[in-house]
């Protein structure tokens, strides 16, 4: 071996050492990774985060170790060799030097150790901890495997979704149960196939049959299902299996109860059964309003479209139509059941049914009406759900006999709804003036104009009593003089007066004041029929009202003209005085135009004051009635238990005596009735009560359990109506003395 070979071998030693160190670092990093992964798993951190974090830390660790590895160079190796191999006499570094760079002594030393190096270089071993690293890796792998064995996954990914498993009950199976299978068999008509669920808390259609199939660890276990209204004994099948079935029409709660072979009575948690009722079908009638009025000239066939929906299936739907003919006492009704033309058969979850109602073919004539509603049934067994819509009305107008009372002006019909009275116009005018500040000018003007129109309509309406529309003219008019016709009592002239015996009881007829003298005009000719005819188209001869009323009406019409004028000119403030005067006149007119008739019917004899209140009272005695309201405190057991819970909650350590547990059990029975209606609210409390009773709660969670139970007990109690009560006071002698002196002061 030449000296140059020594350098080569030193380099080689260095490279080999580095490689081994890398392997060692890898082993350490791997050990670190497995240990960290296992630790994170036991802490329950999610898989992805766990993996990423562990890998990152292992890489960082490797980088840290690798940093040190790549600082290993020849000089460090030489130092190690010098230290480790004394026979090299601390001169191994000479092997790296060239001879020409060494002095004679160094060359001598070099040659001396060279021989030694040559003999021993193969056995040079640099420090390495591969074994330790490997051992550490094995230990960390072992820890990893142990962690895997005891790891309980919290994420949902560990459970198969949408695959109802026969063995995978969501809730912790009670210890004695090895396996539990629940099969739900909905009623046949729902067309839902039987299925299994993986949760003891059930949500089932109404009428479904539930089959529990449970395998206990011991075949001799006697098991039951306890419900508020029933107890089911699970029947033994083969292979330690017990089974029972029952159908449900309403929600309930249940728990398992079993007696072990040692005679111990065990119960499970509480579970809920939520029953989804079969809802009746829904019907939506499209494009028809509840009230339709048609003329003969309109299209007399109506297209009826109904959308029928049900949670399972609609089996039938039809239209019940009733035709009404005639009016008054001679009205006749005829009912018919009509089928939908499309589709021919009503079946399915959603059906769009159509039918055209031909009014003429139904026999409707002008003046008749058709009432109809749609009824639908679903496929519920045994009694189908039935529903009907509201009633729709279609009337066929009879234009021939229609009463046009609004325009005829006979004056005896009721005013139509749109007709505004003078009072209403005044109110609207005042409102308009009040809101003037807040309205834009064009709105103000248009409203004023609209009021002017209403005033005009009113004027025309009243003008009809006097005949022609334009009789009164526009603008201020001179007061019309009274005519010379003597005032006459219209009722006496044209009415019938039979009963005149008790005329002293009649209200005196108003005598008309003759303000103006009558003057027969020269050109007035005498008409023998004058006194008997009705001249409604002649304002002067209109005989509906008596003379002064006519004058007032005329004056009112004149005032209405003026009011309308200012309203049209957008000056409602100026129109108001005219409106007030008009209203006053109209009121006077309506008062004066009243007709008083004789009373008909029974006239009782006048009361004799001297005999009043002198009746015999011997048979009239004082009476008594007595009643008692039963005062029943609601939820008495819950109230008692609430006190126990409050006392327990206030203690540092939760301790329940046997008496307390008995009270809690009774409260649980009361709470169970509430849990039937609100399982989501009280079922957990029932479970907590049971666990508390059986001492199954961890000591560190006892306080939380007590708090939760206390909260639910409090929520279960209803809020009662506030009631008055008696306050307390003490009868201290000083109070009495004070009152006495106060009274004496008052009396002084």
């Amino acid at each position, binding site marked *: 071996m030449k000296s140059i070979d020594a350098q080569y071998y030193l380099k080689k030693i260095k490279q080999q050492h580095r490689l081994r160190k890398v392997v060692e670092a890898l082993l350490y990093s791997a050990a670190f990774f497995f240990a960290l992964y296992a630790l994170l798993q036991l802490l329950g951190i999610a898989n992805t985060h766990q993996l990423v974090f562990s890998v990152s830390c292992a890489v960082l660790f490797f980088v840290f170790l690798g940093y040190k590895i790549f600082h290993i160079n020849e000089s460090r190796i030489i130092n190690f060799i010098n230290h480790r191999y004394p026979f090299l006499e601390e001169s191994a570094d000479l092997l790296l030097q060239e001879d020409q760079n060494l002095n004679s002594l160094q060359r001598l030393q070099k040659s001396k150790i060279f021989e030694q190096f040559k003999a021993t270089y193969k056995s040079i071993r640099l420090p390495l901890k591969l074994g330790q690293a490997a051992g550490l890796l094995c230990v960390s792998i072992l820890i990893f495997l142990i962690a895997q064995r005891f790891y309980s996954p919290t994420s949902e990914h560990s459970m198969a979704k949408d695959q109802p498993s026969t063995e995978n009950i969501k809730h912790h199976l009670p210890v004695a149960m090895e396996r539990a299978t629940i099969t739900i068999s909905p009623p046949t008509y729902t067309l839902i196939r039987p299925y299994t669920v993986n949760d003891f808390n059930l949500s089932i259609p109404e009428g479904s049959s539930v089959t529990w199939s449970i395998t206990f660890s011991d075949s001799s276990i006697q098991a039951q299902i306890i419900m508020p209204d029933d107890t089911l004994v699970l029947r033994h099948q083969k292979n330690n299996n017990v089974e029972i079935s029952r159908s449900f029409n309403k929600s309930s709660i249940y728990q398992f109860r079993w007696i072990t072979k040692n005679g111990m009575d065990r119960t499970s948690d509480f579970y809920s059964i939520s029953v989804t009722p079969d809802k009746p079908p829904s019907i939506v009638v499209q494009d028809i309003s509840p009230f339709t009025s048609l003329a003969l000239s309109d299209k007399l066939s109506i297209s009826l479209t109904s959308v029928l929906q049900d949670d399972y299936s609609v089996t039938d739907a039809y239209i019940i139509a009733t035709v009404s003919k005639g009016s008054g006492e001679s009205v006749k009704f005829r009912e018919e059941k009509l089928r939908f033309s499309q589709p021919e058969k009503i079946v399915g979850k959603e059906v769009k049914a159509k039918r055209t109602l031909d009014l003429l073919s139904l026999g409707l004539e002008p003046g008749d009406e058709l009432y109809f509603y749609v009824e639908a049934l679903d496929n519920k067994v045994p009694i189908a759900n039935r529903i009907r819509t509201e009633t729709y009305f279609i009337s066929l107008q009879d234009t021939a006999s229609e009463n046009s009372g609004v325009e005829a002006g006979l004056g005896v019909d009721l005013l139509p709804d749109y007709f505004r009275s003078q009072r209403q116009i005044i109110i609207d005018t005042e409102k308009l003036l009040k809101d003037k500040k807040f309205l834009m000018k064009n709105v103000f003007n248009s409203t004023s104009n609209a009021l002017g129109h209403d005033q005009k309509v009113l004027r025309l309406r009243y003008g009809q009593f006097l005949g022609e529309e334009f009789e009164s003219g526009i603008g201020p008019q001179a007061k019309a003089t009274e005519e010379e016709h003597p005032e006459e009592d219209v009722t006496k002239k044209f009415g019938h007066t039979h009963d005149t015996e008790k005329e002293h009881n009649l209200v005196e007829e108003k005598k008309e004041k003759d303000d103006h003298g009558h003057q027969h005009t020269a050109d007035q000719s005498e008409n023998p029929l004058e006194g008997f005819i009705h001249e409604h188209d002649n304002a002067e001869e209109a005989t509906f009202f008596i003379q002064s009323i006519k004058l007032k009406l005329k004056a009112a019409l004149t005032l209405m003209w003026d009011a309308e004028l200012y309203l049209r000119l957008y000056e409602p403030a100026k129109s108001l005085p005219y409106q007030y005067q008009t209203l006053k006149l109209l009121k006077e007119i309506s008062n004066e135009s009243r007709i008083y008739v004789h009373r008909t019917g029974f006239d009782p004899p006048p009361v004799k004051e001297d005999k009043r209140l002198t009746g015999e*009272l011997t048979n*009239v*005695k*004082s*009476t*008594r*009635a*007595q*009643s*008692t*309201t039963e*005062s029943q405190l609601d939820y008495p057991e819950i*109230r008692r238990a*609430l*006190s126990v819970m*409050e006392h327990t*909650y*206030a203690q540092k350590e939760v301790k329940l005596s046997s008496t307390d547990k008995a009270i809690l059990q009774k409260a649980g029975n009361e709470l169970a009735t509430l849990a039937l209606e609100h399982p989501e609210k009280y079922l957990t409390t029932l479970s907590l009560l049971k666990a508390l009773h059986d001492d199954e709660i961890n000591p560190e969670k006892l306080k939380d359990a007590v708090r939760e139970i*206390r*909260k639910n*007990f*409090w*929520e279960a*109690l*209803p*809020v*009662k*109506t*506030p*009631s*008055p*009560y*008696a*306050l*307390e*006071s*003490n*009868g*201290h*002698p*000083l*109070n*009495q003395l004070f*009152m006495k002196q106060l*009274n004496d002061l008052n009396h002084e």
Partner: protein
Amino acid sequence: MSDRWLAFYPIFSPAVIVVVVVLVTIAFAWMEWSRKLRFRIWRIVSLMVVMLSLSGLIFRPAVPRKKNSSAIVLLTSNYRTQTVDSLVRLFPELTILQAPESEKYNKGEYLPSFHSLTALQGNIRFVVGDGLPLHALDLLNEKEFDYIPGHPHEGISELTLPPVMVNALTTIQGTYTNHRKFSTITLRSPAGDEDAVQVSPGINHSFELLFTPKQVGNFLYHVQLKDSSGSIVEENPLPISITEAKKLNILFLQHFPTAEVRYLKNFLAEQNHAIAVRYQLSKGTYRYEFANSSPRLTDKINTALLAAFDLVILDTDVFQSLSVSEKNSLKESIDQGLGAIVLFHDLPSKINGLKSFLPVSFTKVKQDTVAVHIRGYTHVFPVTSETILPNRSVQSVVDSKGRILAGYIHHGFGKIGFQVLQETYPLIIQGKKDSYAMLWAPMLTQIARNEKVPFQLNVITEGPLYTNEPVDIEILSSGNQPFLFADSVRIPLAEDVLLDDRWSGRAWFENAGWHSFQFSGDSTLHHVYIFNPGEWESWRANVQTKMNRLSHPHHRDKEMETVLDYRPISAWYFFILLVCAAGFLWLAPKL
């Protein structure tokens, strides 16, 4: 201590120390002398110095110092350091003493307990911080000191809780001080949040919390202070003792049945009050109805009959038809505590004899309807067109915009009430029974006869009650001597010297939680709640501050005494000497 030039405060018995030191010194001196080393004399001297230093550390000698003042500044918890610094600067000779549990001040010395205050009578010049607790104040005969409050406490500074009846709407009133520490005060019942109120920053602002308890008993509510993010910054328990409400015995007198009284009667009967109703059928002929009570009415109204009732409700028609003797009997019964309510069927001014019975004045008003706010809703009722003129003797129960609709005046021990609302029964027909109850229940409660109790117990200690602190109670008796037990322990009571039948006593409770007082021969329990130290800090501090403010300032012209104050020599001196001497002893052999 006496006027010596040096005083000692040995850790152990001096005799023992002297003997041990002397023996050890002799032994070590002989050993040193025996050693054949240089510096023998110096070594012996060093040894003596070592032993003397050790003795100094053990004996703790003190030298006297004259002071011109015995004035003390007492630091209590939550004192301001700047205030104390200023006081010390102004009065350098002040002795700084600290109450237990106060924060450490540089030169302050802690009192072993508040009982030490007895020895410091008259010397306390300043009290700084939250002040002395009430029981500590009692130890000082002369409360002549200047009180300087500390940092203001943020939180609830006062709480008032009335007697709580089951199913009755109850109001908690209080005040708070807030510098933006919290923005909401929440009342939490066992079922969860009961009521909450938003608060703004300020000092001694008032607030109210409402709740309706559902069950009789002692319950622990909580009052939470939350910040703007909803986090709880402070939570304290609020003990609520809920008692059963005593039902009333009510008599209705009517000329003829009315819907108003019928619905009121049925409403009260459903709630198990004892009701008796009398209608007049004819002269001298009546119809009686009894609900939850035994028949006992007679035609004549007299004091014996009325003594069995807590409340009489009569309309103005009946009132006018009562004879003179019946009216006198009614007045006499009201004097003795009966409550009476008059329902107006006619304008009050037209009722004969009303003024002598109900001495209030009425005036005409235009409105014949009135809007009343109940539970956040507005209800409109018809009302008589005459209203009560405001009067100091009239207590309002229901009002609307200043107009009294229902109220009462005191008459002797009883009250005479009036109600001008005409038709309130439609509330029941509309299904608003709670609103109806809120309208009638307060009036009936306040006007009805008070239930007489033989003893009335009041806790007069202000603020929250704590463990191992005295609870002062006052008892008003109706003539009998009370025997009081606190948790079955008899409490000695002292009767007031000037006022008969007024007793006082003091009790202590060792444990936190519910405790009860009970009178001998009476099954009624009066519950009190004892808090743990640290609860309701701001309330406690506020009460304490208030009581300390009542102290009188110190008289400045009082002569200051000259006193000797022994100051211990710093142990550092002895320690340094010890180290040096021991160091020489160690070094000597090496030299």
